[in-house]
């Protein structure tokens, strides 16, 4: 397990549908995760979509990486002024006898320095691209693939 991982769970008496709405829609997240959640484009929080989240005095960018309807949502996020320090959040929802259990896991991403050893590294252009919620999603996969810098695996 990576060292920088945090997991938290809570049990709620709310039903699954209402809880999922709170976890996986911009309006729902704005009620508890941040004071506002602005998703770029139409379609909501779907894989590949980007959003800006305001939480207190922090502005965070997020990119949705995975969504299983009614079950889980995963996204990568970072402070707007710290694009070099992203982490991945996975929110899972499980029905219980009394209602629902929400489990959140946040793991710091490994972003290797340019030219260093590691899994992969994002160029500054890729970070800018991910951080720009106005980018057209239909161009994103190809552009992003072109900006991923291959980094040699450790010996």
């Amino acid at each position, binding site marked *: 397990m990576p060292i920088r991982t*945090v997991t938290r769970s*809570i049990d709620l008496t709310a039903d699954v549908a209402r809880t999922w709405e709170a976890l996986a829609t911009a309006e729902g997240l704005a009620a*508890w995760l941040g004071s506002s959640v602005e998703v770029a484009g139409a379609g909501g929080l779907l894989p590949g979509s980007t959003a800006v989240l305001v939480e207190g005095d922090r502005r965070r960018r997020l990119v949705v990486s995975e969504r299983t309807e009614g079950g889980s949502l995963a996204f990568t996020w970072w402070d707007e002024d710290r694009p070099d320090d992203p982490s991945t959040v996975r929110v899972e929802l499980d029905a219980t006898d009394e209602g629902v259990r*929400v489990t959140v896991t946040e793991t710091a991403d490994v972003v290797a320095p340019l030219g260093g050893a590691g899994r992969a590294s994002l160029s500054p252009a890729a970070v800018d691209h991910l951080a720009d919620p106005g980018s057209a999603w239909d161009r994103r996969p190809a552009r992003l693939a072109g900006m991923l810098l291959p980094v040699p695996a450790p010996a």
Partner: protein
Amino acid sequence: MSVAGDDADPIFAALGDPTRREVLRRVATGGEQTATQLAAELPVSRQAVVKHLQVLAAAGLVATERHGREQRYRLTPGPLDDAVAWIAEVGAAWDDRLARLRRHLDPDPPPAPDLG
């Protein structure tokens, strides 16, 4: 950076308590402080804060320094600082967020246990 074997056990045991994580987060982000200053911002007594600080000190996460009659606590410098501070800060942030989620979805939950 690495954490392995017996060295890590007291650290993760110390971080297993939500109030202790909050105490550590405040020491990490607020700099050197006394137990009285920490207790003023937490919903627990000074005595409870002192006990949490003693557990954190035993795990090597905080150190004490005496200034006259005051005992001040600070984050221990070392290779674990970054990871521990990250875990404490991110964990405390999720504690706050999930408490807001509970208030949003469960406005009348059963009484929470005393954290003191």
